[in-house]
């Protein structure tokens, strides 16, 4: 069953056609990679999923509910978490506080004033936070300011912040951008472990090594539309994909 359905989406920026009659279906429980050359519309598409952009026409439906016109926090409350290209964390707070905030947002909703209760007196949330930090190998840095973490640890922290919310859909925007080979491989291992939880994932990625290691299905975007879709093996041999990446003249 498709958990995310994108139907006939169009988006223009001035004269530029960023998304053009785009259709996409993401099956529940799969890891779906979206690849394509620069300017193909990958980030625009992602921003339509999270409420930052609203397409001119078409529909984006998640788990039976339309995402169009919803604010980022509402979409998150529906069960969509995202990881940014450069890890976005609360740099002025400790690692533990960083994972407790999303846990509170999941448990208490988008707005609730509990100004009188000490944070650590919520045992359920504390346990969950410590558990996720153990799983991510960050438990020793719990009391450390998150700005002092290494880039790889920041990425793991950001993933922990998403996973503590038990999302139905996890969006990963170039999770290995700018990483060394070793860090990239660590991230791949981490994401493979997450796959065991059955969370649906959408990965936007340039690095084919990452894509072919993780993806169950791949959609190839070029000039704002899906030009090919299939399993990694099907995509590898597709002449249209090679043309899109290497340019028409060579094909």
């Amino acid at each position, binding site marked *: 069953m498709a958990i995310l359905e994108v139907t006939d989406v169009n988006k223009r920026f001035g004269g530029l056609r960023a998304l053009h009659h785009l259709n996409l279906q993401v099956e529940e429980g799969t890891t779906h990679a979206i690849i394509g050359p620069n300017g193909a519309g990958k980030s625009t598409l992602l921003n339509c999923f*999270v409420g930052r952009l609203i397409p001119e026409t078409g529909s984006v439906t998640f788990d039976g509910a339309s995402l169009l016109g919803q*604010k*980022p*926090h509402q979409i*998150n*409350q529906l069960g969509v*978490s*995202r990881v*940014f290209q450069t890890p*976005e*964390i*609360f*740099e*002025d*707070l*400790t690692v*533990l*506080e960083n994972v*407790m*905030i*999303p846990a*509170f*947002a*999941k448990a*208490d*909703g*988008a*707005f609730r*004033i*509990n*100004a*009188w*209760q*000490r*944070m*650590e007196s*919520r045992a359920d949330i504390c346990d969950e936070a410590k558990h996720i930090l153990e799983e991510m190998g960050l438990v020793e840095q*719990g*009391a450390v300011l998150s700005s002092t973490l290494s880039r790889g640890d920041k990425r793991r922290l950001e993933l922990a*912040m998403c996973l503590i*919310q038990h999302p139905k859909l996890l969006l990963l925007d170039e999770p290995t951008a700018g990483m060394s080979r070793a860090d990239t491989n660590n991230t791949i291992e981490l994401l493979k472990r997450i796959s065991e939880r059955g969370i649906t994932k959408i990965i936007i990625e340039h690095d084919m090594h990452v894509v072919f290691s993780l993806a169950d299905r791949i959609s190839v975007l070029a000039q704002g539309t899906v030009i090919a879709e299939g399993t990694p093996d099907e995509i590898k041999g597709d002449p249209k994909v090679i043309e899109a990446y290497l340019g028409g003249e060579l094909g």
Partner: protein
Amino acid sequence: MFGTSSRADWLLLIAFSAFVLAAPVILKPFGAAYPDLLQKFAIYGIFAIGFNILFGLTGYLSFGHAAFLGVGSYASVWMFKLFTMNVIPAVLFSIVIAGLFALMIGFVSLRRSGIYFSILTLAFAQMSYNLAYSVLTPITNGETGLQVRQLVPADRAADYVFVLRDEDLRWVDQALGVVEEGIPITNLFGMKMSGYPGFYFCAVLLIICFFIAMRISRSNFGMVLKAIKSNQNRLSYTGVNTRPYLLTAFVISGMYAGLAGALLAVTDPLAGAERMQWTASGEVVLMTILGGAGTLLGPVLGAGIIKYFENIFSSINDTVLENVFSFLPTTLQDMSVAVTGMFVGEGWHLTLGLMFMIIVIFLPGGLMQGLTHLLGSFKRKFSNTAASTDSPG
């Protein structure tokens, strides 16, 4: 794993309370132990703690908080004029009115962030200030300011509804048969709210306000406010609707300012529009940054220092300086008086400005940052010596 334990917080609260209640004794050597100044310390301490809930936690810099201070003062004086000289209704009414006012201004201003938010709050405060001098004179009594007056003679009481510039009604006090001779003084169930009783009333409220601010900053609500300052974008993608959190923080800090305004009227029953001027809004920003934005004690410390300078440094004049330098030969004495004279008396702003610059440049976290560093290095030194004596050989 948490920055502070609940036990450490209780110790801090007890130490803070002890210091505040013993302030008349502790501040005596500094020449600051007279009730008028002590009241100001406590009142502006409350103002700065409240301001810090908005600015220190969320990072939203309001440049119009003096408006809530002014509104609180006017609301209190009206309670004195219309109902009773007892301070409890006045204080409660001021907090409510300032809260409603903050709700309106915050609702509009929080549609923007950064410098635009600051400018919007500044615009609202200046608007209130100018309105108080013009259109709203029936409520504010314009330049003269709103004051507590003598009672209206009973035979003319019916003529008055809201035109009460020169005479008051005080329905509740009249119904209770309180006898007034001349212009009455504010009281707490009969206890006069001037001098030291007035200070202790403010001091108790300061301790309560400090406790509330402490609870807020240790709660999830406070943590969300800190996260807004840290990374608002991430917070909205984490499922938190930031706007109502910001508005709540804005209203709470407006209520703190309203309480401070009420206490200004309690200790001196008079309200003037100059309390709402932008310089007054700027002063609370200085207090918070000077002491340490985002810390619990910093704002109170900053408020104390600024009010101390304003009252003590500004009262030092050339005669005092001549006495200080009297041991020097006449030429040197004159020179010393001329140089130091620039920094005291009228020139106390210069001292404050220099101090502010030095602190912002070298201690961006305010005086509290300096104190924490000092304490930290003491602790390290102590543990180092302890470790070296412990080690065998």
